[in-house]
């Protein structure tokens, strides 16, 4: 290790501001310091709005107007950047600083081949011939581990898988041998197994080439996986900074502690996640009202089966010109069977494309099954469902930003199903019920007068839950309800769902790709792969003694905070 080399990145007192049309100024980055040594992977962590992406943009000269760097300095490999232009003598983005963005599909130009895009940068910045560039491109492809590199050079982006595309992006970032790489959420769009590979690749490259990496992410597991040092940001300022192990296992600053505590652990199951409780007097009163409304008395858990799924198959076919005959058939779900007992939370976990969402959509009635039976509280669910059946089965979706009709006031949105199922006799009564529901989920009752855009992601998801509770369902399907939310908000919402299960006597079908979340929430779990259930067990058994290879693989690859301790042990 060369101690005489200057740090690849040295940021001091950086301040970035966005002047607003109202005349105010939004300070996106407040006087932060950050230092990265050669070969070090430095994670810049924070929730949405923390300013971490702005830092990355600033040092690459990609700040979007009207944002500007107001004060401070950025040195790359010892040379200061001219803050006005984002450039400096001898330091060129693309050559000395490489970038990796989140979505590889949109980072690559669909009309040009891999080789073209790899060589572009080299031919621009390095004084080499086209033939040399191609040779280097081939080396790069091998370095990032793409199989059949010769052949793949001639491919177009859409012909590669997501993981391969990101590898190509990494190769482009490395093409001119940069000293610093800025990776902005490089694995968020990838599956867990691919994510593990890409992270390892980044780690290896940092070790072998001495490149410094600024890893911008909101995912603690990723940080634990490969980071050497961590800086946590909140509202534009640095809250804590230090070696990864210290910060992750023993955070000092209060926000850092809350943040780390909110990460659902994968190795144990907690009754509640340790985030500040939100029980105010109003909330408690509202929840009492909800509990009273549940005259069904199904708050008790029992072995009675509420939902029974047998040999469910869902196929998607591409229609051909001749109606009735499908040219190609895709089996999204192949003979899935499971049941959900009263009062239990049943989890479906798997990677993207495994069919778990299709199962949820089929049970919810959004998709028709090709074959198989679904029994819900004694009724058989097919294409057409009775009103009472629909009423009893409600759903919460993944994307809080599309979950609410932007044109409806919140109280009307919640009141609509209540009125539809005649649980209130008129609009005013229904809106009163809506108010109670809002308070139950921890929002103020007068939130009902506002529109969706006034609320944050976590709040919108609460509203969506309140709306789902309106018809007094006995079962709630949750399809990745917290995947789009920040860690601390996620923790609150998971606690909320558990509370509601007790209050409203709900059974739940909980879908997620995040094993840690599943462990926290569910009583029994089914693991899905390629449309089938490969393992079904109760939570403890699944996590402590998994039977199927795929389950074991998933557990092995799942990023977790505990990982940081393993790494320490391994390198010791």
């Amino acid at each position: 290790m060369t101690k005489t080399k200057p740090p690849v990145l040295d940021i001091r007192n950086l301040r970035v501001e966005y002047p607003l049309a109202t005349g105010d100024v939004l300070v996106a980055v407040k006087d932060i310091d950050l230092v990265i040594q050669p070969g070090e992977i430095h994670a810049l962590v924070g929730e949405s709005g923390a300013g971490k992406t702005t830092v990355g943009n600033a040092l690459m000269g990609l700040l979007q107007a009207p944002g500007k760097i107001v004060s401070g300095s950025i040195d790359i490999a010892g040379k200061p950047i001219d803050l006005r232009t984002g450039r400096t003598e001898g330091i060129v983005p693309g050559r000395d600083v490489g970038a990796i963005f989140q979505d590889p599909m949109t980072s690559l130009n669909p009309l040009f081949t891999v080789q073209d895009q790899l060589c572009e940068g080299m031919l621009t910045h390095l004084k080499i011939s086209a033939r040399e560039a191609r040779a280097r491109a081939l080396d790069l492809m091998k370095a990032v581990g793409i199989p059949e590199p010769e052949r793949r050079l001639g491919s177009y982006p859409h012909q590669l898988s997501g993981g391969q595309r990101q590898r190509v992006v990494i190769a482009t970032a490395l093409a001119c041998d940069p000293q610093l790489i800025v990776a902005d959420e490089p694995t968020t769009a990838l599956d867990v197994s691919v994510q593990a590979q890409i992270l390892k690749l980044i780690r290896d490259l940092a070790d072998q080439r001495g490149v410094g990496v600024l890893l911008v992410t909101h995912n603690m597991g990723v940080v634990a996986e490969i980071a050497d040092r961590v800086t946590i940001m909140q509202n534009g300022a640095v809250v804590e900074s230090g070696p990864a192990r210290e910060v992750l296992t023993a955070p000092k600053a209060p926000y850092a502690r809350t943040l780390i505590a909110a990460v659902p652990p994968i190795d144990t199951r907690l009754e509640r996640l340790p985030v500040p409780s939100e029980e105010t007097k109003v909330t408690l009163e509202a929840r009492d009202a909800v509990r009273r409304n549940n005259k069904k008395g199904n708050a008790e858990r029992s072995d009675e089966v509420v939902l029974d799924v047998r040999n469910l198959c869902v196929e998607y076919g591409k229609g051909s010109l001749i109606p009735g005959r499908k040219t190609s058939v895709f089996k999204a779900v192949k003979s899935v069977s499971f049941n959900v007992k009263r009062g239990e939370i049943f989890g479906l976990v798997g990677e993207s494309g495994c069919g778990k969402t299709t199962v949820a959509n089929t049970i919810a009635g959004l998709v028709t099954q090709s074959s198989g039976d679904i029994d819900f509280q004694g009724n058989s669910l097919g294409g057409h469902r009775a009103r009472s059946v629909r009423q009893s089965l409600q759903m919460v979706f993944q994307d809080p930003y599309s979950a609410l009709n932007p044109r409806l006031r919140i109280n009307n949105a919640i009141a609509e199903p209540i009125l539809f199922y005649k649980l209130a006799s008129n609009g005013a009564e229904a809106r009163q019920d809506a108010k109670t529901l809002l308070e139950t989920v921890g929002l103020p009752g007068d939130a009902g007068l506002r529109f969706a855009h006034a609320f944050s992601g976590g709040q919108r998801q609460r509203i969506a839950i309140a709306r789902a509770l309106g018809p007094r369902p006995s079962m709630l399907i949750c399809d990745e309800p917290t995947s789009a939310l920040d860690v601390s908000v996620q923790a609150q919402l998971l606690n909320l769902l558990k509370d509601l299960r007790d209050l409203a006597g709900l059974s739940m079908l909980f879908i997620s790709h995040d094993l840690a979340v599943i462990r926290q929430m569910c009583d029994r779990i089914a693991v899905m792969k390629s449309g089938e259930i490969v393992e079904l067990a109760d939570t403890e058994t699944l996590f402590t003694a998994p039977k199927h290879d795929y389950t074991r693989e998933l557990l092995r690859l799942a990023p977790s905070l505990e990982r940081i301790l393993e790494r320490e042990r391994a390198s010791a």
Partner: protein
Amino acid sequence: MIRLLSVRLLQAILVMVAVTAIAFIMFRFVGDPVASMVREGATQAEKDALRAALGLDRSIPVQFVHFVGQVLTGNLGTSFRYQQPVTDLLLNRLPATLELVVVATVLSLAIGIPLGVLSALKPHALLSRLTQSATLVGISMPTFVTGLLLILVFAVNLRWLPSSGRGDLVDLGLWQTGFLTLSGLKSLILPSITLALFQLTLIMRLVRSEMIDVLSSDYIRFAFARGLPKSYIYSKLALRNALMPVVTVTGLQIGQLIAFAIVTETVFQWPGMGLLFTNAVGYPDIPVLSAYLLFVGFLFVFINMIVDILYTFIDPRLRTK
């Protein structure tokens, strides 16, 4: 890709069948073809004889088949007004319209694309702002008003250019061209500018909005992050992506051009198919109208197919699996 093309072909045939059916209905049922074709004072016997001769007494499906057969052999009926075969009339006037349309398209592309790119890249430059205002005015002026104004200024007041007709023509056998004489070229100027104007503004706006879209895309941002030179990014990367929809739209715009050719030809008394059509509407000369419909339908289907094929060559996502 073969599959894609064969699907397109099937759709194209379906469209043509539909269009032919409509043309047939027009031809057969609108107005009374017999009454329009016989002279005044014809007896009932003469009318019946004509009816039989035209095959109008047979059943509808048979007539339709007969019609299709005639169309396929190039017989598009006889004009009520001119008492000549419609096919001859159309073919006679085709060169005039084609020359006009070609010149107008070239003009609009040659001016429209560069101006569109300019106004996307440098939206605040003087030329950009002028052109943007000009485009607004351009799409607010109907073609015939443009034509009238041009005639007023250049033909009536300044007397530099003729206001009607094609000028002297050179006969190349099947084709009579105005390209080879001075008066022919002079006559071409005003009509082609008129025709090009509308097209021009549309292309400019399209190129501009496509460029703006592409410039804000991730891969362009990524290209900047890699330090590639601006001029390279703009010319090679952005333009190529932006031009794809322009190709499609220009192809499909040929239809609009044919429509506006109708107006332009009327204003300038340009002896092309458009003028023929306008006169046919006033008469009404049904065989000409239905033949025009068929012709335009075929042209569209043909152009759509060409555009689709072109597209598969430009966009690698469609070429490879």
